[in-house]
């Protein structure tokens, strides 16, 4: 539990020992089989879990880590979880005698200071041995839990000054010993959770790991452990080679970006993330030197493992999506994270909210930097929401309920070169299935009033960002609402000349004398009938708006993504006819003249 431990956990690991010469096709077939094991494991969890965030929203991940602690061969699930799990298992691997590892064991880890992400991301894992008793690999399964037994339901405390406020911490806890559930340990873990559904979730995670371990045993006995080890080595080497090939196509140089977060949860302003991406031949280094390290910041601490993961999530997005996601990425890319900055906090710092910010500003900064070399794939994989508006109340029987606010909405999908931002959220979050009004209202005393897209609500550009949406909700009973507001002063940044997204804003008790704008955070008791309105910023634009095809602008106006006024003021497009009658046409001459004038003015300003 120190910077030294972080260094050890992140240190490069060698190949699995084997002299077997494997051919490409056999290696790929075994990799496919491993991916199917992950798929089965994740599916098992998805079907057996009770909590909506797992069984409907799919916030879970299955991966296989080899005996050296390397992410072995692909994974199935949420990208930011994919690149964390190997760090958590490494702590166990470093202590396997101390923790008495053996066949049939299943462990639980969630410790931010021992290779973990934030506390709610539970990682359950089980070692896999060959017939001679040699450890070959580890099946891991991660899922976001609805609660962590901390001060506040859900595990997100706006005022947390240390990790202990946020919940119970497990560096490596044995849940199953040689196939037998440790009932006392299990009961304690379940007791430290507010929600009754948790017992079902953790049982499902254990079951999912055991199911996968059984399948992996079958694969190892079928192919032989030497062949499997060779296949793992081959897959990782192949990925590293492909990543380096991609990097070598990029021009050498150092590309930097700075992104600011409006403020931490205590109101300290302008929290800085700085990234420098250095490219030398086939070597990419992502260096976070210059990132904020003020020790008194509150709530904006992203764990070391999470920082590595978010960097990698964006690096992966910048490359050919067919490259297999495994340790080869970490072998090819150096990540430098200064000790003590918000991307590698001192021990015991709170970790929950850091997984939102600065984690997402890290991807944004990496994306901005890499947009210099890979513009066609420069879409930041993030959310700029601060925290969704969570509402919490009690039913007639005194049972607590919570609507976590993971509703359908449009936010933060920026354009990439050639494609306007589309859908609800960026691709990396695309395996999350969002909640619908009819489900939420059948369960909670709330009324969804609107969640429509906002005209002119994203960044303009040669390709425009998806418009953000305005989510308006009414509480039908007295209810507590929690919020953390960012991205108002510093909205999502445009790429390669595209406009920024619009600022986020959040208002409580809309339309009443108590209507107020949430500046930093809120944890308010709302009266019956109160309305809350969250304006999402939408995605940012890509490329200069004046370069957008005027016909596309006309279509956008017809669809009310863009207003007539913005067509003129942002895009320099003059339209004739009437929107009301769908008779709009581009006035080509006037458009050309206006665009020349606007370009000249822009140049004059620069």
């Amino acid at each position: 539990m120190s910077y030294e431990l972080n260094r050890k956990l992140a240190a490069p690991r060698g190949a699995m020992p084997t002299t077997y010469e494997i051919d490409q096709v056999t290696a790929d077939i075994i990799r496919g089989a491993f991916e199917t094991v992950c798929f089965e494991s994740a599916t098992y969890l998805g079907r057996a879990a009770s909590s909506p965030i797992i069984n409907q929203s799919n916030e879970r991940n299955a991966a296989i880590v080899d005996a050296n602690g390397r992410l072995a061969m692909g994974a199935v699930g949420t990208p930011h979880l994919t690149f964390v799990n190997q760090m958590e298992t490494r702590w166990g691997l470093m202590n396997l005698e101390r923790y008495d590892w053996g066949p049939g064991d299943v462990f639980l880890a969630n410790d931010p200071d021992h290779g973990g992400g934030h506390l709610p991301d539970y990682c359950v894992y089980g070692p896999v041995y060959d017939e001679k008793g040699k450890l070959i690999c580890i099946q891991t399964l991660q899922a976001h839990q609805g609660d962590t037994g901390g001060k506040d339901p859900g595990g997100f405390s706006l005022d947390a000054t240390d990790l202990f406020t946020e919940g119970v911490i497990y560096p490596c806890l044995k849940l199953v010993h040689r196939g037998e559930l440790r009932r006392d340990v299990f009961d304690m873990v379940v007791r430290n959770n507010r929600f009754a559904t948790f017992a079902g979730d953790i049982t499902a995670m254990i079951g999912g790991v055991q199911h996968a371990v059984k399948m992996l045993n079958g694969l190892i006995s079928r192919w032989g452990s030497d062949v499997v080890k060779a296949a793992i080595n081959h897959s990782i080497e192949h990925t590293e080679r492909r990543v380096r090939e991609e990097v070598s196509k990029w021009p050498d140089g150092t590309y930097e970006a700075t992104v600011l977060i409006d403020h931490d949860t205590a109101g300290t302003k302008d929290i800085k993330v700085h990234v420098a991406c250095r490219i030398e031949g086939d070597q990419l280094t992502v260096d976070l030197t210059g990132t904020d390290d003020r020790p008194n910041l509150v709530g904006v601490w992203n764990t070391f493992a999470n920082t590595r993961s978010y960097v990698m999530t964006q690096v992966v997005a910048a490359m050919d999506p067919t490259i297999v996601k495994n340790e080869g990425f970490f072998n090819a890319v150096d990540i430098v994270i200064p000790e003590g900055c918000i991307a590698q906090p001192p021990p015991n710092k709170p970790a929950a909210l850091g997984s939102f910010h600065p984690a997402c500003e890290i991807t944004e900064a990496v994306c901005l930097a890499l947009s210099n070399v890979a513009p066609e794939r420069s879409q930041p994989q993030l959310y700029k929401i601060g925290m969704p508006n969570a509402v919490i109340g009690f039913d007639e029987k005194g049972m607590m309920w919570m609507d976590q606010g993971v509703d359908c909405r449009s936010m933060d999908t920026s354009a990439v070169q050639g494609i306007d931002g589309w859908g609800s959220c960026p691709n990396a979050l695309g395996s999350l299935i969002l909640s619908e009004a009819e489900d939420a209202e059948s369960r909670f005393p709330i009324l969804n009033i609107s969640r429509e897209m906002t005209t002119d609500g994203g960044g303009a550009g040669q390709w425009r960002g998806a418009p953000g949406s305005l989510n308006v909700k009414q509480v039908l009973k007295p209810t507590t609402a929690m919020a953390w507001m960012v991205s108002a002063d510093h909205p999502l940044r445009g790429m390669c000349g595209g406009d920024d997204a619009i600022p986020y804003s959040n208002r409580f008790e809309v339309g009443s004398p108590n209507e107020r704008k949430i500046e930093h955070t809120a944890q308010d008791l709302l009266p019956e009938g109160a309305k809350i309105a969250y304006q999402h910023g939408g995605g940012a634009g890509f490329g200069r708006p004046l370069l957008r095809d005027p016909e596309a602008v006309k279509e956008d106006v017809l669809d009310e993504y863009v207003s007539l006024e913005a067509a003129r003021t942002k895009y320099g497009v003059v339209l004739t006819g009437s929107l009301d009658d769908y008779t709009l046409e581009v006035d080509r001459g006037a458009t050309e003249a206006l665009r020349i004038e606007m370009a000249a003015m822009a140049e004059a300003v620069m």
Partner: protein
Amino acid sequence: MTYRVGIDIGGTFTDFALLKEGSSESGKVVLHKNLSTPEDRSLGVMQGLGALAEKEGLSLADFLGRCEAIVHGTTVADNTLIEMNGAVTGLITTEGFRDEIEYRRGFKEDIWDVRLEPPRQITPRRRRLTVPERILHDGTVHKPLDEGALREACRKLRLQNVEAVAISFLFSFVNPDHERRAREIVRQEIQNAYICASHEVLPRAPEYDRTSTTIVNAYVGPRVTSYLEKLVQRLVEGGYRNQLMVMQASGGVMTKEYIDGAPIRVLASGPAGGVIGSAHCGRAKGHTNLLCVDMGGTSYDMSLVVDGLAPAEAGWNMHHRYLIGVPMVKVETLGAGGGSICHVNKGALEVGPRSAGAAPGPICYGRGGKEPTVTDALVMLGILSTDEGFAGGSFRLTRQGVDEAFQAIADEMGHGVAEQAAFDCWRVVTANMSQGVRRTTAGKGIDPKDLVMLAYGGNGPAFAAIQAEDLGISRVLVPKTSPTFSALGTLVANPTIDEERSYIASARTLDLNRIRQHWNDLSVRAKKYFTDAGFAAEAIRVNYQLNMRYPGQNFSLSFDYQADVALGDLSFIGEDFGETAIKLFNGRHMAEYEHIREHEVPEVSGVRLNAHVVTPSPEIGGGFTPSGNPPSATKSRRANLDAGFAEVPVYLGKDLVPGMEVSSPAIIEETFTTIVVYPGWKAQIDDAGDYQLVKA
């Protein structure tokens, strides 16, 4: 003599299965195939019916006059979505909810690919209009329907020349009054538009699922109904006197009149027909748990039959990138067919999902294809022959250009051996299919090795045994009728109505009168459609089903509360209804998810009715009585059946009769398919003349 005819229209062929009744030939099936007629598909249907009449020695009018039922599987809806040429469609929805359909609940098909293009929108934003109105979850009206605003929305849609309108309001499945009234107004305001209301198409939550289904229904509806109308007209003119029955994705058939209410029910009905045919065939041969695999030109379809049934699920069915919420027989598809293209991607050999399709097709078709495909690999391996007629003798395969294409792959892979490259392609596609199967069975508590495989489609039997080996399966059925399996499926499927009504309440506080009322309403509907179709009300059998879930779960489980009882008999609803429902639900949850939440009271989320009439089906025999007669191979050729190249005997299907056994290695050439007997396996011709491959 009377007849029942099953017809399935595919991209290339229209398949027919004729079932004879009421004579010494009762229960016998005659198969027929002719080319499809894409310009007017009903023409191909009439041509085939003419050919069947001729085979029976009857005039078309006489033959059609003797047809008790003509059952039809159509791909019109699927084609409309593939070609994206459906009706110009508008959406009218609740104010504040204009964009749900565009958000797709956050779903994106590839979470790693930032360059993923959006799906084409059926209802672009300008044709999505909202109206002030609001109904709450308990059905009470929170805000009345603003009829003035609705008429204004209609004006805007009219200006945009919409041909179809989907109406989807929040909680319309609890209280449909606003949708009903809106439909009346839209009918007045937009003449001749095809209109559908969400509470009729999919009366359940949540709004994205229901709205998406309704929009697709509006989009494909006009084409499906006009096609069926034209077909009915031709049949009636030809002398057919009964109702046309149409295959649904749920695996049941129903009258055109019923389909007209929600034409989306025919989407994906073709594959469903194949699965229903498989279930019937497997059952007849004594196997009720099946893995059905259908490998055609572009895809590899996998489905499961459990306890003799192919249950329809109404879950997250994404078709052509749109969510379709109606019950569908679950068929998983992999881009691995005969036409799938083999290529090297940065050092890794990949097969599919891109396909050469039927045109230009594989290189060996000699129609200008340049990229090597799975079919080409089979030619290189000697599994497919270039000597005789392929696909029933319609054309001959060529080796020209095939060697060169695999040589190029071999060079790119660095080993330089063309035959090795072809073999590697075969290995990759085999592994892809096996992984696909494992993903299909994943999470269902099913181990593939406990299943019997049933292989059909032109390319399925060439891979079946090797995949079975990989999956631990020890028996593979290859019915002789497999090339026309979907047509056979339409013939064995029963007329079925499967509908639900939303009702959400804790199982301990149920309003039994409301449940009774829902089941009554559904029963009245079912009775009307069945009796209109000429079935006696007494013949209708019903499964009364509930959808239930634990609080907090979005996806419900369906189960029979009362199965196979007469329509309208609700005497089983008594005081202990709720407790019995809890017990039944917990049992179902345990079977599906391997756990229950004993301290929680589940809730009912819907009331469902499955009404059906049992109709005659073809007889299919099973069993294997060895005759001891050795088959004789007509020739041999050099082939690699996973054990290196060697001279392999080749048998012709027409020479093999029941009781014969073919040992490995061997290749059996049938008219429309090639069956490979891999090392360690043998082929038997069972008493019905069908093939079964078993571990030697």
